[in-house]
Each structure stands twice: as C-alpha cells, then as structure tokens.
C-alpha cells in the first residue's frame, strides 16, 4: 500500500471489469500522480472508457480496488471533488448553455459566477444564452465540458474532450488542462489523437485491457527508438500483437 501517498491522486490495483461475457480489464494496476495531465491513449475498444468509469465509480467492478484522493472511487466524499466528462455529451439540449452549467453548478454547490467562469473557460460566453440543441457539435461538447469544470474539481476524468474540435479550440483546451494541472489538479484525458500526446506529462497506452506503456513521452520514444508518439505507439502495438500471436502459436 505504498502507492497511497499524498502525491498520488488515483491508485488502481488489480482492477478487473467484466462487461457482458467479455473481460474488458483483466488485471489492471496503475498509479496517477497528483498535479499532472495524464493521457490515456490506445485503440478504441481497448478499455479506456471502462477504466475512466471505474475511476469515477459508476462502473460495476469484478475485482480489485480503485481509490481516488485516498477514498474509494465513487464514495460520497468524492462527488464534489471529481469531475467526469462522458464521451457522449450529457447535457440538456432544451436548456441554454448558462442554465445547464448553472444547474450542474448548483448541484455541486457553487454559484452563478462559477458557472460564468466555466463558460468562459470553454470560450462559449457568446453562446451562453443559446439552447444547447441549437449549437454545433463542437460547441455542444464544450458546453458538456463546462458542466464538468463548474465545480472546480480536484480530479478531472475527461473521456475524449477534444473529439470533433478544430485545431485552435483543441490547443486552447489543452492549454486549459495544463493550467489546471499547474494549479494542482489531476487531469486524466483519453484521446485517440496521437499528436495530443506531446501535451501530456505522462502517457498510458491501453490495448485490450492491458497497459502496454506507462511513461513520459521522451522515455517512450527512447525505448521504442522512434521519433514521434504515433510511431512509438504503433511499434508497441505491433510488438504486443506479435507477442500475442507468438503465445497463440
């Protein structure tokens, strides 16, 4: 239990998750340090969302432990301190951006000024009075993110927050994630865009429920002898596939 120290915000030990008759995460252990942006990368269907659901405590788990900020994932004490962004936007389409963010803010216990700050952080101030259902896809997902940011959570679990956004907005959001980490927040971000890896302090590569790599980008490049994140990941995935193939043969 040496992993549970004040420097670690998320500690996952021997996590096993079964969905339907499929073992999505067979035996996963990982530690996420506080105050960093952690990129969770890997092929779709590899268990990224399931791991995130386990960290926020909405996933039924078959074994192992997940602790966040020293508490069991999903425990009542954490509900004000952990912010979760689902992959599909989960906001009310028939309310304005401001009404959505204010409502989720009130549930967490913050006021209207916090809502306005969250809307500004995702650059939607000009659209605050628009109904969410009338927004573009990218604006819709930013409204979704504002509802996660509003309570200023200590741990942010963001499932593909930049998907469908143009390069300028993606850069602005990554700047925001870096600022949050600079303020001591822990940001766990999943992505399948490999060029976003350079903005992360640490990278987790998840494939078929197994962590292939848990390191910084320079370490990863050195280990694989490659020059960018995409090549490094392809090298690791090919290596793992060859190993699987070898084991099967």
């Amino acid at each position, binding site marked *: 239990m040496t992993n549970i120290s004040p420097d670690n915000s998320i500690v996952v030990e021997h996590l096993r998750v079964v969905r339907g008759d499929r073992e999505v995460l067979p035996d996963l252990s990982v530690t996420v340090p506080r105050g960093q942006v952690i990129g969770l990368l890997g092929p779709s269907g590899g268990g990224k969302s399931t791991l995130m659901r386990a960290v926020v*405590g909405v996933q039924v788990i078959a074994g192992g432990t997940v602790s966040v900020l020293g508490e069991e994932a999903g425990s009542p004490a954490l509900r004000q301190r952990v912010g979760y962004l689902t992959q599909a936007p989960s906001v009310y389409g028939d309310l304005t951006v401001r009404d959505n963010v204010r409502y989720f803010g009130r549930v967490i216990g913050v006021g209207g000024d916090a809502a306005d700050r969250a809307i500004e952080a995702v650059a939607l101030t000009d659209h605050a009075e628009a109904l969410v259902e009338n927004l573009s896809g990218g604006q819709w997902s930013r409204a979704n993110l504002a509802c996660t940011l509003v309570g200023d959570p200590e741990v942010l679990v963001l499932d593909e927050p930049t998907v469908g956004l143009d390069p300028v907005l993606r850069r602005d959001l990554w700047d925001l994630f870096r600022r949050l980490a600079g303020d001591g927040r822990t940001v766990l971000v999943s992505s399948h865009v490999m060029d976003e890896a350079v903005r992360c302090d640490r990278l987790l590569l998840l494939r078929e429920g197994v962590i292939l790599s848990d390191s910084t980008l320079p370490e990863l490049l050195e280990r694989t002898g490659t020059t960018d994140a995409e090549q490094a990941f392809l090298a690791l995935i090919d290596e793992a596939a060859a190993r699987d193939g070898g084991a099967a043969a």
Partner: protein
Amino acid sequence: MNARITLATAARILRQLRGDHRTVALMILVPVVLLGLLAWIYADLPGDVFNRIGPALLGVFPFVVMFIVTSIATLRERTSGTLERLLTTPLGKGDLMVGYALAFGSMAFLQAVVATGFAVWVCGLEIAGPLGLLVVVALFDALLGTALGLLASGFARTEFQAVQFMPAFVLPQFLLCGLLVPRELLPPALEAISDVLPLSYAVDAMKDVTVQTDPLSDVLPSLGVIALWIVLSLALGSLTLRRRTP
C-alpha cells in the same frame, strides 16, 4: 437528500418545460377539451351521466398525463447520460425523485385548477363538497402518476417502450376503477384486485367529494391509500436508479 439540490432540480425541470410551450398547452388543454366533449355528448340524454362520470375523469386525467410526461422525461435522463452524470455528483436519488414530483406536481396543480374550474363553471358539473378538496384529490392523483411514471421508466429501454407502459400501467386500473362497472358489481376476483389498485381510491375520493357536502372523513382514508402507493412507487423507483452500472 438536500433541499438546495432538490429545489435546483425542480427548477431545472420547470425551466425545460417552460421552453416547451406545446407540451404545457397540451397538459392544460387536453383535459379541458375532453371534459367539454364528454359534457356535450351527454347534454341531451337523460340520466345525468356527466355528473356521474365527470368527477371520476377529473381524477383520471392528471394521473394519465403525469404518468406519460414523467416516464418519458426520466427515460430521457437515463438515455442522454445526464442521469449518469448527476449520479457522479452530490445529488441523491431522493433529490431527483422529489425534484420531479415537485416540478410535475406544480404543473398538475395548475392542470387540476383549470380542469375543475372548467367542469364546474362551464360544463355545469355539480359538486356538493368543497371545490378545494377536489383539487387536492387531483393533486394526489397527479403525484401518483408521477411516481408510477418514474417507476415505469426504470423498466423501459426506449421511448417506444415507455409509451407502451402507459396502457399497461393505466388501462387495467381504468377498467377496474369503478367507472365502467361499479366496483361492488365486479366478479369477486376483479373486485379484490380493484381494492388494491390506487386509481380505484382516486375515483372513490372524487365521487365522495361530488355527492357529499362534508366528505372529508371518507376522502382521507382514500388519500391515505394513494399516498402509500406514491411512497411505495418512489421507493421502488429509486432502486432503479443505480450509481454503478455494468
């Protein structure tokens, strides 16, 4: 449960409704049109039929409308992911259930006042008891519809299924509530079932208010049974809201 979160939730649901003028208009106007139609159908016939079934319908409308609206609205929360998000926040299940009950209950109150006023002052429905009590009974019926709607939405995966639950939950109660055949004339097995179903008590209470000048002592036990059903449905409904899902 937390009063701040419950009230914020009720306010949010009302804000969503406020943006949907057509739904609000349907909730208020459909009972009025149906009551008017009913009064008109029986206008030239002997037997004072409208006075006999009008009050019962005043109990049935809020129940049916709130059942549909609530089951669809909560199903949307489940399928849109907003429910999962809310359950990762400090919001308690009770906050959500009571928030819905408060929001739709206040709509039901409006509906009951308009429908009762229309039935009495436009259609000439004769009420011996106090009109206020009629509205109170209608409000209980509406809350019953909301509570059962919340429960039903837990068993629906799609909006198609949720809509089908309306006849499944409501029509048997409607057939057995004494409106078509007085309950004491039903076959014994059906009478026993009708003695358990909440809509029977709603219709009984409405009838009591219509024919008695001082109906409170007969109405209170009926309201008690309805309240028991409301609490039971909300408790069972909260079991279908799970923070952790497979």
